[in-house]
């Protein structure tokens, strides 16, 4: 009996004081808990569309290209899609000169892309590998990681040139 009473009382007591404690903490947190994480919110990554500037990650001679047309999709290109771009910056003596219109395969995109199993993949930056109209890469090397989805897009050559496949 005594044990029963004790356990009951302890429960009631702890809830009583616990309730007080909760109220107190709520009171304090409302005073200075509102301004959090605003400065940490990131830019929303979106499609590769007209005027998107992409890094060129092969040795074709171009440094940066600007998308002028996505060949697929209404909103824009995503990871693995082909785009038409104009070369904005280029190395001297490269195969590709500044101002040329080129085709490119998006090998890295900051916007996430669904995978066949339902999970998603995203990369650090937007990067492109220049190809000709038939889809053969212009350069002979590919830098950085590329997704394995390129195999489904019939870009096996890029995959074999790449050092890392993610």
């Amino acid at each position, binding site marked *: 009996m005594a044990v029963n009473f*004790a356990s009951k009382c*302890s429960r009631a007591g702890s809830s009583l004081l616990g309730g*007080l404690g909760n109220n107190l903490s709520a009171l304090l947190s409302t005073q200075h808990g509102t301004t959090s994480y605003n400065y940490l919110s990131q830019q929303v990554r979106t499609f590769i569309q007209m005027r998107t500037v992409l890094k060129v990650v092969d040795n074709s001679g171009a440094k940066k290209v600007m998308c002028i047309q996505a060949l697929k999709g209404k909103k824009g290109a995503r990871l693995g899609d082909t785009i038409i771009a104009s070369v904005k910056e280029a190395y001297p003596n490269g195969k590709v000169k500044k101002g040329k219109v080129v085709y490119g395969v998006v090998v890295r995109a900051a916007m996430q892309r669904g995978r066949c*199993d339902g*999970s998603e993949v*995203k990369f650090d930056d937007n990067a492109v590998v220049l190809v000709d109209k038939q889809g053969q890469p212009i350069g002979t090397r590919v830098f950085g*990681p590329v997704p394995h989805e390129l195999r489904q897009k019939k870009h096996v050559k890029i995959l074999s040139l790449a050092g890392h496949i993610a």
Partner: protein
Amino acid sequence: MRLEKCWFCSSTIYPGHGIQFVRNDAKIFRFCRSKCHKNFKMKRNPRKVKWTKAYRRLHGKDMTQDSTFEFERKRNRPERYDRNVTENTLKAMKKIYKVRAVREFSHIVKRRVGKKAKELEQAKKELQQDISLVIAPSSHSGGNLRRLPSGECFLVSPLKRSGFEIVILHAFLPAVGNSSYESNTVKRVSPFFWVPPSREALALKRVLNTIYFLLFNT
């Protein structure tokens, strides 16, 4: 299909779940859910976030070294399918999980040894220091209303148990000018009403907590 571990919380990622982020140096960060992904984007260190496995391992909360963990290994060569091996593996898995659960439990029990004694020690010290804040109803003639120097009022009600006469905090009331005991009882203010964040009230709350603790833990 491979079951990967979440980079942030170390839970298992089942196929079709989560997101993976590939850094430019080709390091892959896999996340089991958006919660972990967001925490990563906020540049939080999983070793400093309390709910992650990394934190719990680092702080000795979970069992880290055990032979049952040895079975879970990353193999890069696919096993040739064998019906008997698969069957035995499935049987062994159950057993291993059982053994692990038993060992985890004993680990937690071992971890908590001495905690109670430490708490009791602290509570006794606390009581000695702040017992002056609590008044016994016998010494306080008539009304049960107690007023703190800062103006907050609270009700006290006695509880008799095993020879002790102890005052239990009943309710904190906001400071009301000229409020009598009667009017407050009529209002029947809930005990979870409001805590005035004054030093006396907090100290009193602490000491009453201590009394509860000593009453029901010795």
